């Protein structure tokens, strides 16, 4: 018996530092690229520089003769011409889903698409040889504008489909019986002198997930089971989908996600390189590794967002919102990603947000273009929706001459109204928007900043102040399986867990969630420590290997705690139930007289008892246990959530805008989030801070720019401007708690909240600073140049068009010299 320590207080709520960090920050982590197997070969993908072209020839001969090369393969050489990667989300029965090849054979459909692979002894030799592969292309006109592409008569990305529209998905509250008819609401408002109709178009620019660890795959084909290591968020889904794609029996494949350095949705896909590495390894009977370069990652890993939003909101002049109509174009890129088409659909239920909107309609047109595909990126659909409604509420407030916070208050669901069924038919179980808002307003000094804003306006200060508001909610904890079924999603939404009580009293927890930076090992240990009454240090959390964790649906959509964590609680309850039987047996008492508290089974009213570790040992010895049970405490559980989780919060941003240069500075950011009960406040704070940085980055810094040939022009971190800590202030983050009623821990998701909430707060703040100058909109990212042009436009000063097809300065990669377009140094 090796009990480490007596647990004294509850672990739940403790701000523990993360147990995984020691290995992650001292270089003792194991990423996929750290794996080196005997005899391993390296694979490099030859990618198309053109966005749209016919392949007229591939000459491999020089590459095949290069030093160290084992093979150069096209799709035909690998027998992969008939293989298409799966899309797991047919959002409509007639959704058009062109086969997504592992390598392009006849036509390339986006710049960065693979055409061939080179396999060599070293990565350097493979890269050298890849440059010798001669691919001949006949260029085709690229189709790049999603709106134009959706029109009849547009040139086609996939001529076989006869259209660039993949699917049109509609939610209509009148048809669903969850609300009124929005068309009627709009015509009524138009006819009513006492109503207003506000129409706006917003653009969600294309973003790059920019996870820290580039993607990497290692496949070892030797042994009875093929082993695939991948830098993925979804080892379980990857295993199933690899079977679906290549036909390898699921039982013959073991997938391992070792330490994974971030994903943000960017590693939720099942990608060509994973399948290619497998096929080549099987063909050569040797382990093979593929690791992408950063530029490859920016170019070819899926992107996020990229929507055009046409919005109509109607309201009574007293401020009561009466209807909301949403029309989206969503750019899918050249093919459909694993869940790409469903991303806007996830947003469909969130445009109404925290507001009581009686009539609502959502129409989304998913469009193909010759660009990199889009798929989930932190928030996936919900940031887009939140941006739209929070920007609209500000626009409506201006139209009505109301304080934007007051207008929100007037329309939101008050805390007495929970549980509340929305116009989308979702039931929000709990929330208290008043509480979060009141606290945020107080921390922010809303009234004081409004006064300062007034003063600066009056003085005509060079630097103006704007106040940005976002009172968001989101749906996460993906997801009740039946709901996913009703949306035609290709999987369930449950999660699995197992708990093994070891002979020595230690505990192994196996989860189907697959952490990649979130802190699961810490948070889950805290939960189990409380459930079983064992010390935190005695709990080991195992995950990310289909041989250790055979069942699971992985990590995305802020689901790990609210679904995976609850599965762990259910498994722990079963362990305790079994242990109680054995305790009763050993203590010669009736089970009804046994109480369990803080790891001790005691007989009511006596001092007699046994620790859970003693029971575990007794079960292991199995010398003396009840007749009617097996000698084991180990338990499994699969938990299917009954509802989504609905975190919410109020985010306030003080934005300073230098009207001379257009530079935007975030002076102060306050958010008060309600994520229900908090397992570990430190982890919650970390998630909120990181999430804020990513959401603010969309508002101010990031955009994947394509030129008119379909070339990604900012494909390095010199040009794709990610903010660093130096660009952001210290955030003021707090939380209030209205426990979720849909799960036994009362927890809600937090992984995406900051990203979803912050983007509109920032943009609302920028526009609020300039509204009095006549500025009505600034597209994202609100760069200094965009802001400056918006001010000039408002003043009626004509300025020049901004080119997007040139590189930015820096590192000899840009400062484009017309005679030296590659920026090559002489």
């Amino acid at each position, binding site marked *: 018996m090796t009990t480490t320590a007596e647990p004294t207080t509850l672990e739940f709520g403790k701000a523990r530092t993360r147990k995984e960090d020691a290995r992650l920050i001292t270089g003792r982590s194991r990423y996929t690229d750290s794996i080196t197997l005997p005899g391993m070969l390296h694979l490099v993908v030859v990618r198309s520089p053109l966005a749209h072209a016919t392949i007229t020839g591939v000459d491999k001969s020089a590459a095949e003769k290069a030093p160290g090369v084992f093979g150069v393969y096209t799709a035909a050489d690998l027998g992969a011409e008939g293989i298409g990667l799966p899309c797991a989300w047919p959002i409509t029965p007639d959704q058009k889903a062109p086969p997504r090849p592992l390598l392009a054979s006849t036509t390339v459909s986006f710049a960065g698409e693979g055409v061939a692979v080179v396999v060599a002894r070293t990565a350097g030799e493979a890269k050298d040889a890849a440059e010798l592969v001669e691919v001949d292309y006949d260029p085709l006109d690229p189709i790049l504008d999603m709106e134009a592409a959706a029109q009849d008569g547009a040139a086609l990305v996939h001529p076989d489909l006869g259209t660039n529209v993949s699917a049109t998905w509609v939610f209509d509250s009148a048809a669903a019986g969850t609300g009124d008819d929005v068309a009627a609401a709009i015509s009524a408002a138009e006819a009513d002198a006492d109503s207003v109709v506000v129409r706006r178009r917003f653009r969600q620019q294309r973003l790059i997930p920019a996870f820290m660890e580039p993607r990497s795959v290692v496949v070892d084909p030797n042994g009875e089971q093929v082993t695939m290591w991948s830098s993925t968020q979804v080892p379980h889904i990857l295993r199933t989908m690899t079977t679906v794609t290549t036909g390898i029996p699921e039982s013959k494949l073991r997938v391992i996600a070792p330490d994974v350095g971030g994903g943000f949705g960017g590693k939720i896909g099942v990608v060509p390189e994973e399948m290619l590495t497998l096929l080549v390894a099987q063909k050569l009977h040797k382990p093979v590794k593929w690791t992408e370069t950063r530029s490859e990652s920016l170019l070819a890993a899926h992107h996020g967002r990229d929507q055009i939003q046409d919005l109509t909101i109607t309201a009574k002049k007293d401020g009561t919102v009466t209807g909301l109509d949403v029309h989206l174009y969503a750019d899918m890129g050249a093919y459909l990603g694993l869940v790409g088409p469903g991303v806007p659909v996830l947003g469909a239920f969130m445009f109404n947000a925290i507001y009581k909107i009686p009539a609502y309609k959502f129409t989304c047109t998913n469009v193909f273009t010759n660009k990199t595909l889009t798929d989930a990126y932190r928030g996936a659909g919900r940031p887009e929706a939140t941006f739209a409604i929070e920007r609209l509420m500000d626009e409506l407030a201006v139209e009505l001459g109301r304080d934007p916070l007051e207008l929100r208050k007037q329309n939101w669901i008050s805390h007495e109204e929970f549980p509340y069924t929305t116009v989308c038919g979702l039931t929000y179980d709990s929330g208290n928007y008043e509480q979060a808002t009141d606290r945020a307003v107080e921390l922010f000094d809303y009234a004081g900043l409004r006064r300062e804003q007034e003063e600066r306006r009056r003085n005509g200060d060079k630097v103006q102040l704007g106040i940005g508001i976002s009172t968001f909610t989101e749906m996460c904890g993906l997801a009740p399986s039946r709901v996913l079924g009703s949306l035609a999603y290709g999987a369930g939404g449950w999660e699995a867990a197992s708990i093994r009580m070891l002979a020595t009293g230690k505990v192994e927890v196996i989860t189907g969630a697959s952490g990649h930076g979130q802190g699961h090992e810490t948070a889950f240990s805290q939960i189990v420590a409380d459930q079983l009454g064992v010390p935190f240090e005695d709990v080991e959390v195992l995950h990310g290997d289909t041989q250790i964790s055979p069942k699971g649906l992985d990590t995305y959509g802020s689901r790990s705690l609210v679904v995976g964590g609850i599965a762990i609680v259910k498994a722990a309850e079963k362990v305790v139930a079994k242990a109680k039987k054995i305790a009763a047996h050993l203590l010669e008492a009736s089970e009804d007289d046994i109480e369990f508290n803080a790891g001790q089974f005691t007989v009511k009213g006596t001092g007699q008892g046994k620790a859970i570790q003693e029971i575990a040992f007794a079960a292991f010895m199995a010398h003396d246990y009840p007749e009617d049970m097996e000698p084991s405490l180990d338990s499994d559980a699969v938990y299917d959530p009954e509802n989504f989780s609905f975190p919410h919060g109020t985010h306030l941003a003080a934005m300073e805008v230098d009207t001379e240069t257009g530079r935007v500075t975030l002076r102060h950011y306050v958010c008060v989030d309600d994520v229900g009960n908090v397992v570990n406040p430190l982890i919650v704070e970390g998630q909120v801070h990181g999430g804020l940085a990513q959401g603010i980055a969309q508002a101010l810094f990031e955009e994947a720019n394509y030129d008119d040939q379909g070339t990604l022009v900012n494909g390095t971190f*010199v*040009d794709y401007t990610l903010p660093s800590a130096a660009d952001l202030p210290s955030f003021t983050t707090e939380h209030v708690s209205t426990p979720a009623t849909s799960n036994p821990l009362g927890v809600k998701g937090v992984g995406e909240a900051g990203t979803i909430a912050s983007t509109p707060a920032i943009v609302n703040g920028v526009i609020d600073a300039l509204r009095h100058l006549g500025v009505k909109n600034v597209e994202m990212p609100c*760069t200094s140049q965009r802001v400056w042009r918006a001010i000039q436009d408002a003043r009626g000063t004509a300025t*020049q068009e901004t080119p997007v097809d040139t590189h930015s*300065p820096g590192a*000899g990669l840009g400062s484009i010299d017309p005679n030296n377009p590659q920026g090559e140094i*002489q």
Partner: protein
Amino acid sequence: MIPSKFDYVKPASVDEAVRALVDAGEDAKILAGGQSLLPVLRLRLAAPSVIIDLGGIPELRSISEDGDRIAIGAMAPHHDVMRDGLVTQHVALLAQATATVADPQVRHRGTLGGALAHADPAGDLGAVALALEAEFVIVGTSGTRTVTAADFFVDYFTTAIGEGEILTQVRFPKYTGWVSHYEKFNRTAQAWSMCAVAAALKVDGGTISEARIGLTNMGTTPLRAPGVEAALVGQAATAEVVRAAAEHATEGTAAPSDADAAADYREHLARVLTGRAVLTAVG
């Protein structure tokens, strides 16, 4: 990402380095801090056959006083330059501009000579060298020559350093007692300049007696702003004078257009930043 194959030599003296350079022919590249060269190699935008690393020549790192000049070895890292007492005392503008370059990691590796030899028009140090009329000491097989800043910067990524030559030292006149400021405008805190203005002024009893203004990223090379300088000299350092003088900032410039800033916006920035640089310098 992996560069193409190259040979690597690390000479122990300038003479050896020059010989290695001549032996290798036009395919050789000098390696200083590698902060600009390595990205280019890794992206395979360049594939030299030989890399000659100047890191083994200690005297190229020295910073010393040489009469009325401060002589800075080409291999002095940014980090050393910005903290050196001689530099902060006599060439404060250089220290100020160097402090805005990238981040601490890059500043520990990147060198003054490397930055100037690289001659990226978005680089921050060229405008300073030009405005402060630095001299460039260049060594080749035929000996040592000295080139003025005005002659050093030729075009995009092109300087007066010839084939088989090495930049060994940059010599700055002393600007002891001058006031100065480097006003940089960029997308993110650690990004390159979209536009920046270097200003050094001698102010005697409230009157500007001398002015040096340099512009970053307003053409294919760093530029001087003689119109601004002329408008400042002999004037009182008032906001009005400075604003009027700053209107001359774009004379003779050829602002590039890129995604961060089209030419008209850059020109606007140059004027605004010139005003701010001068006003901040004079306090």
